[in-house]
């Protein structure tokens, strides 16, 4: 049995707060989040960067946390689904997903919501093609995506009207 690498200490800003953890440098950030930090909102769908269920934001970039080694989190600003709502107050995108049927089984939903937020940060008023492109790394088997698109459009409309 090969000797495994020693753990290292990693410090980052996680959902707005300073955080640090010990992990093997090549441990998957997904496992660190779920198992060590108990942030189970980030999901594993395929473990190979295809499905996007494990999407998180690192320094404003949407990444598949199943492909990110823990050591890369050093010094990064990380946002997971747990950092999207403020207390009990849901983000407009989360509200829109509930109102417009954007979530069915819910397993892709955390990653999908982070993908939507990342898209809206880059394109505050995305057109159809931008929405489709922006969410194309996140697979959903339930909705056929239509209700997810509607949810994103509704969230934008909400932001515009301040409703």
């Amino acid at each position, binding site marked *: 049995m090969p000797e495994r690498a020693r753990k290292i200490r990693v410090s980052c800003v996680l959902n707005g707060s300073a955080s640090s953890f010990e992990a093997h440098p090549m441990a998957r950030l997904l496992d660190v989040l779920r198992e060590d930090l108990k942030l189970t909102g980030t*999901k594993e769908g395929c473990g190979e960067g295809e499905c996007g269920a494990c999407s998180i934001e690192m320094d404003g970039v949407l990444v598949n946390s199943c492909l990110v080694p823990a050591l890369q989190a050093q010094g990064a600003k990380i946002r997971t689904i747990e950092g999207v709502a403020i207390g009990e107050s849901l983000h407009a995108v989360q509200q829109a997903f509930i109102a417009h049927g954007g979530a*069915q089984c819910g397993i892709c939903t955390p990653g999908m919501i982070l993908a939507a937020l990342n898209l809206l940060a880059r394109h505050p008023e995305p057109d159809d093609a931008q929405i489709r492109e922006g969410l194309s790394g996140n697979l959903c088997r339930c909705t056929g995506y239509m209700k997810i*698109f509607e949810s994103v459009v509704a969230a934008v409309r909400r932001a515009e009207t301040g409703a």
Partner: protein
Amino acid sequence: MAGEVRQNSLLRPADLETRVIGKSVPRKEGREKVTGRARYVDDLSFPGMLHGVTVRSPAARGRIRAVHFEGDVPWHEFTVVTAKDIPGKNCIALLIEDQPCLAAEFVSHPEEAVVLLAHHDKYLLEEARRSVRIEIEPLPGLFSIEDSLARKEIIWGQDNIFKSFYVEKGDVDSAWAGAEFVVEGTYETGAQEQLYIEPQGMIAQVNGAEGVTVWGSLQCPHYVHKALMILFGLPRERIRVVQAETGGGFGGKEEYPSMIAAHAALLARKSGRPVKIIYDRAEDMVATTKRHPSRTRHVTAVSRDGKLLAMDIDFTVDGGAYETLSPVVLSRGTIHAAGPYACANVRIRSRAVATNAPPHGAFRGFGAPQSVFALERHLDRVAEAVGIAPEELRRRNFICEGQTLAVGQVVKEKVDMNALLGRAFELSGYHAKRKQFAAENSDARGAIKKGIGFASFLHGAGFTGSGEEYLASEVAMEAMADGSVHILAGSTEMGQGTNTIFAQIAAEALRLDCEQIRIVQPDTAHVPNSGPTVASRTAMIVGKLVETAATNLLKTLRDSGFLREGYSAADFSRACAEYITEHRVLKSFVKYEHPRDLHWDDQKYSGDAYGAYAWAVYVAEVSVDMRTAEVRVNDFVAVQEVGRVINPVLAAGQIEGGVAQGIGFALYENVVWQEGRMVNAQMTNYVMPTSVDLPVIRVCFEEIPYGRGPAGAKGIGELPLDGTAPAIANAIAHATGVDVRAIPVTAETLLEMLEAVHA
């Protein structure tokens, strides 16, 4: 861009005076899902918990000679389970008991479970799994329907046949002589992976006091319950099955979860610790069930004016190595094989055969998508032979109220397929596009050819024939002193909206708001057996029991004198409190009663196959790049009559999601087999539609309330899988002139067909 939903209601004004039915009430568990707080099985953890893995057969068929535990692995730290550790019967009990929980002497398919391992360190566990060598003396296997039918080997029973059906209406053989045209054709559909985004998983705990408890991702808690009782030889009350939040099922979590629960429970029993088994994606794809591959042969007699005189249908599905649910899948496929047409003479011969692949299983549509693909593609070819438009052929043969379906069921519902067809054509601009594309496509230099096609079909809701009678589903409802009403049912939420529509049905009947209704987590220790969450039966069958339970509860309150007419929510709560003070408990309990006028003969396989059908016409518009043979679906219109729509957003979500899976089934999702093993068991090379691959999916509901459904609703979940693929195949044929006979139509297969046409 987003799918538009139209409702073209045929409802009377009285039907519309509802409180919450017909309204897009937000998903009951939506808040947990959008915040990441919903707890799926892999999010659960127990003190002292071990992880479990499965060591699987490297061969498709053979005799197990030995199991070697090799490598530099501290084996003494591991819990190791083989067939010898099974306390009861070594089987995963379903319809019969032919599938072992762990192979003992023989293996019958690749990746069959042989050894189980548990350890607290997941990484070490993987090393260990790779260090177990299962030595097998190989035997020749069967890997196709043809080889199984030819009996090249006998691998199951006497003849490799799990089940066969024979359906006959009229006299088919007398019709050939009088036919102007006889059209033949053979059609095939491939396996399809359910590809729920949450892989399968279970946690088990076993102790002397409580027996066996499992928590998991599953559709049918009572299926798992039954399998564990037989595996452990324990009485009913010593087995408990709890459904965790479930990240999609689509049939894939109907029967297979019993296997994983059994494995986790065996490891838990031997180790004395809780054990969690979570499949990774590759294991989930390579080892669990898929849609049955199929082959259908049609021979159809038609008159000069396009009347169907006789339909002779031969339908075969590949069931894989064990029977599991194949007889039932075959049954639904058989009954749907002749479609929504009135034809005096119909013969359907069908069978499910054994091969040395992992058992194929439940997948949304359950046999119907296979036989409906064959029929609807075939009818376009029949129309061409007769020289009439494909819609004209359908119009001349659509079934009407009072006419008889192939299985001898007289249609007593109001059905108007012509109206659905008309609506679908109007929304899709079918006629104008058909003409326009034909003209544009005639330019031979064009690199892009366009086509438009459709399929018309029906889907029966609920268990087939006497199935619901045998299930005898139960639902309970309990009101609390605070006025909240709890629904206790074994029906599971897996994304399709069970929680929400049950709340709506109960709220409507009780004249309360949905917030006042609570759904109790499916747990066999607390909820009655409402039957499996399958077969488009939850809304229509179990929903009706919920409605009846609510009506009974209300009657009890009224009769007791605690509740008067025109009550408010506060009055209701007060009445509940008063009733409970006096009588302790306010609970109602309902059991399914089969309608007396529905008759089914299991021997003749004829009668009222389903209490109700959903009816639909779907239109697909495609473009084909003639250089790359890539097909894109540009527009999709789905028109259906599903009774009263309980929740328009959820209902449209069911159709849109089903159409997306149907588009995958038609174009992208190709399981590549090598000696019974799926070799592309990754999301990288098994391709499902992404957000950039799909057209706008336009959904339209016509609503005719169904007298026996809750608030008039019928089943909806499986319907969209039936008609999507044939509509697309017909559109591809229209665009390219290629006679599509098999799906998936990948670019590779279409390229070959295009070259053949233009050679």
